[in-house]
């Protein structure tokens, strides 16, 4: 674990949906910190609050109480505009599927957060191409999403999540719609980005994929029931799937 300042900090996070008879406690006092270079996997059964955790961490939803601190900013007190700006500059999202905007090419998709931020189209494209090259995706730059495979789309989405100075990737089942081999390659890329200094939170229900993480957080009924660091997770998951060794990037 790093001694650096955490990129993401969740403090006593509570989220209650509805009220009265329909009241549902999605999160009950979550505390979590994610540091640069760290990939945290969040696991748990359906309805345990995994996705809620991720949406609140990215400012797409607001907690009922508690604090969410991203890069030293408490986003629970930020306005809509500030939140949007934060998503442009600090937080990247990767969802299960349909991550890319069908009307834009890979490069334009990656450049989008920068362009929305007011960077000129040319400069944004240069940055996007650089990001794609860095992840060995340069050859996809001018393809539209419907001209790419699912795995390629997810990798472009990761590139977009980290373009510019963004250091936090929130990935919600990024491999859910992929076959296992492609899924591995996507996770390998995510792992490599974290090794390069980004902080990542990965929601998954496949232990095999969780094995890529430095730390696995188990959620049940909105509360953290268990945490394992990498070595423990390794042993924990032995026999359920042979996790590849760190740093190995497998391309399909």
């Amino acid at each position, binding site marked *: 674990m790093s001694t650096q300042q955490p990129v993401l900090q969740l403090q006593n996070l509570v989220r209650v949906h509805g009220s009265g008879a329909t009241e549902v406690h999605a999160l009950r006092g979550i505390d979590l910190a994610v540091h640069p270079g760290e990939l945290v996997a969040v696991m748990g059964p359906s309805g345990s609050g995994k*996705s809620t955790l991720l*949406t609140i961490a*990215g400012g*797409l*939803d607001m907690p009922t109480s508690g604090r969410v601190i991203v890069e030293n900013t408490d986003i629970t007190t930020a306005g*809509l*505009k500030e939140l*949007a*700006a*934060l*998503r*442009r*500059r600090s*937080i*990247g*999202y990767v*969802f*299960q*599927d*349909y*991550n*890319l*905007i*069908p*009307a*834009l090419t890979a490069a*334009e998709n990656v*450049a*989008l*957060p920068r*362009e*929305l*931020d*007011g*960077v*000129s*189209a040319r400069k*944004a494209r240069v940055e996007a191409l650089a990001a794609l090259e860095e992840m060995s995706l340069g050859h996809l730059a001018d393809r539209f999403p419907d001209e790419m495979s699912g795995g390629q789309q997810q990798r472009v989405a990761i590139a*977009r999540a980290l373009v510019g100075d963004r250091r936090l990737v929130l990935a919600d089942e990024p491999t859910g719609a992929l076959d296992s081999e492609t899924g591995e390659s996507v996770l390998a890329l995510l792992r490599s980005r974290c090794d390069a200094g980004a902080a990542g939170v990965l929601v998954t229900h496949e232990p095999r994929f969780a094995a890529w993480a430095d730390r696995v957080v188990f959620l049940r009924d909105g509360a953290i029931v268990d945490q394992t660091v990498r070595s423990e997770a390794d042993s924990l998951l032995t026999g359920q799937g042979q996790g590849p060794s760190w740093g190995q990037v497998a391309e399909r």
Partner: protein
Amino acid sequence: MKTWFHSWRAAIRIARRDAWRAKGRSALVLAMIALPILGVSAFDLTYRSSELSPAEQMDRSIGAADARFLDARMGGVPLLQTPEGDNYAPAKDTGDGAWPTGPTDLDRAVPRGASVLTDSTGSARLTTRHGLLQAEVRELQAGDPVARGIMTLLDGRHPGKPDEVMATSHFLKTSGLTVGSTVSARNFDRPYRIVGSYELPDELESLQINALPGAFLAPYAKAVEKSGLPAPESSTSYLVRHRGGFTWNTVQQINAMGVVVMSRAVVLDPPADSEVPLYKKEGWGNYGTSAAANAAELAAAGTVVGLAMLEIGLLAGPAFAVGARRSRRQLGLVGANGGARSHIRAIVLSGGLVIGVAAALVGTVLALILTLALEPYLEELMGQRFGAFDIRPLELLGIALIAVLTGLLAAVVPAVTASRQTVLASLTGRRGVRRSSRVLPLVGLGALLLGGTIALYGSVMSDEFMIVAGGSAIAELGVVAMTPALVGLFGRLGRWLPLAPRLALRDAVRNRGRTAPAVAAVLAAVAGTVAVSTYGASRDAQSRAEYEAMLPHGAVSAVVLEEGGRDVPAVREAVERNLPVDVRADVERVQVGKLGCPPWGGGPGCGRYELVVPKANECPLYVRVPGGGDASEKYAPEQRRKLLTEDWRCEQNGNGGNMHVEGGLLVGDAKLLKVLGIDDAGAEKALAEGKIVTFHRPLIDRNGTLGIKRVTDTVAADKAMEKGLPAPGEVSPIPAYLVRGEPTSYGLQALMTPATAKAAGLTTVPYGSYFSTDRMPDEEQRQKLDAELAKLGGSAEVHVETGFTDESSIVLLSLAVFAGLVTIGAAAIATGLAQADAEADLKTLAAVGAPPRVRRTLSGFQCGVVATMGVVLGSAAGVLPAMGLRLTEERQEIRFHEEALAEGWSLDVTPPYVPIVIPWETLAVLLVAVPLGAALLAALVTRSRGAVARRAVT
């Protein structure tokens, strides 16, 4: 600023690609916006091109001359004219008296050193391949350089010899003649060879032939006079060329000699209004353009454009909403990647911008191409050649801008709606029922109340149409704004409906954001249609009630006024041959003066006659006052009213009819009474006894006779009239018989037999015939007759009494069709939107075991629900303002009627009839057929099997 620009660029890129991906929807919206733009741009191009510059106008009317000198026919008295020379008046005030008459010496006005080309025109009935054709005869040396620009030679050459003419292409087409044929005129035995064809660029439809000066008009006039007919009239103007042209000062000097001048120099550089003495005369003014009229025109145009934009916006709006809804996940992704609400708005608005710009481009370019390609047809249609093809970039840009604005307008509501969604809801596809804005319906209610009050005030208190129309327009906009709230009211009906319509109605009501614009679009179109239809139907009913038959139903009259009834036998024969006639009553008319004189005199050697009203029988309101003046001024309004409505002397006897003779006096026999449906045994007996039969009691004097006064000197008679004295003339008293019971006599006031007329010393000429028919002549028979009569050169006047035929039904029908199309279009768009939304419901339905056809039924009902709500609201919103307008009209007509009675103006004394008629047929079509059709159509085009259900993203 720069940041703003870059993020908009990204938005536009997304919108552009999206528009391209959804080609069908984009094309639909593009067409909706581009079509009106195409129409307006094409109109602008056509209008501007056909609008000639003053220089072009001058070329066409005076050729290469510096001025045209026109005879004002005021005997050479000094006059004042407008700079264009299109209007003039004597310089000296003539009071109430008539203007001086008489020819003017044009030569006197021509300055020394100027060259003159004469241009004369008259008319003649020319012989053609088919018969006779009334045409203009011109004598202009068309080959002279001075005349260049007036006539365009199309074929052949200019006439070079006195027996040669050239003819307009329209004349050749109409007459069936060609270059090389010969043409002559009736009563004229000299043949002319047609050596060329030409056109007048300003009057492509003109029937004209052109001969050398002096070659046609003068010999023709002589020949006509020789045959005992009055000589035809012709006029001559001078095309004058003079060094330095004619300035406004010179023009005014020439005006002093009684000559009107159309000067190129003055037209190209007109003097200020203050320098035009004519405008300073009482009753004159430069009415061309007043600021108020301009403002009113501008306001009207602005309203029309605004309403059209609103309607298109309402129609296209749902399409953008569909687009936004379909790409909800995409918008969510943008949000997840840091797109703020403004970015989401920008993306959806860019959709409108992209389509708007494309529509502007397509519309403008197509308008240019079409106008250019159709130029010859447009010129034929307008009857004049264009000047230069006139493209006004600023105007076209302005029109194009309207397209862009319309596109943006249509996307505003969807953009705001889309941006209000949370990113999470967009990403997960979660559907929440969004509360529609409460402000808009409140504003709408305000507008409705305000507009309604204004319109109510207009219809109940005033008789100003504008107040009612303006109030109605405001109220209508209010109703449109209230649509979301009104749609909510329909939701309560849902409880009693079966599953599919209930689901459709609930869905429509719960998703007002998409239902309301479509309903509003239908509402606006239907309201307009219903308003116009109601008004039109009411007008029709009024016209039907006010219609005055000229003859009994099915009867035919055929009369000839010209040349002493020379064509009467031919006309009678033609009518008998072509129409199913039964009884034929031949009639003659009394003629005073030369044989060829028209009724009411006119021309040298022509007189007229009067039916004398004995002094004792004159209506006190109309008694002639010596020295002029109004007899009715002696009476109070109430007295006038009483005289008009109760005194027999003031009774009008003019129940319809179209007698073209003085006093409605005809010479004929009892057959005429039969044709006119007048059954009076006494009248027949009286005719046989040599009496004159009359329908107008005041014409009979104490001795039981009716006097016919022959006025031979019309000039002396006019002078006496001015002084309020009776016209001088010899009176023939004839024993009279009055037909009692006031039968409808169709304008006939008196009838006597030829023998009676002869005995009274009156000359008669053939006038024509009245026919009764076995059955109503059909269209084919009438067209055949028209064609035969046309060969006589149009001298016969034929009337077939077919009763009232309403002309507005076609307009009403096309309006109903238009509203129907808008309704179906709007409902279809709304249905498409509902379908896009309802996918999840349909999957649920399928999962609980609903058969596949439920999908069809549901979409049918969704479409039907939107259409029904629109037409129900629209019909209500349309009927009321039309009723308001009618009430205003009724009040106005009653006021006019009362005023007329009070002033003592003779008028129909029955009070005006202003009914309000609801066009039930149109309403039925709109209320029943259109929603039903829309529903069936939607059901038909919906696939009953949806895509295989897939678990949505959680």
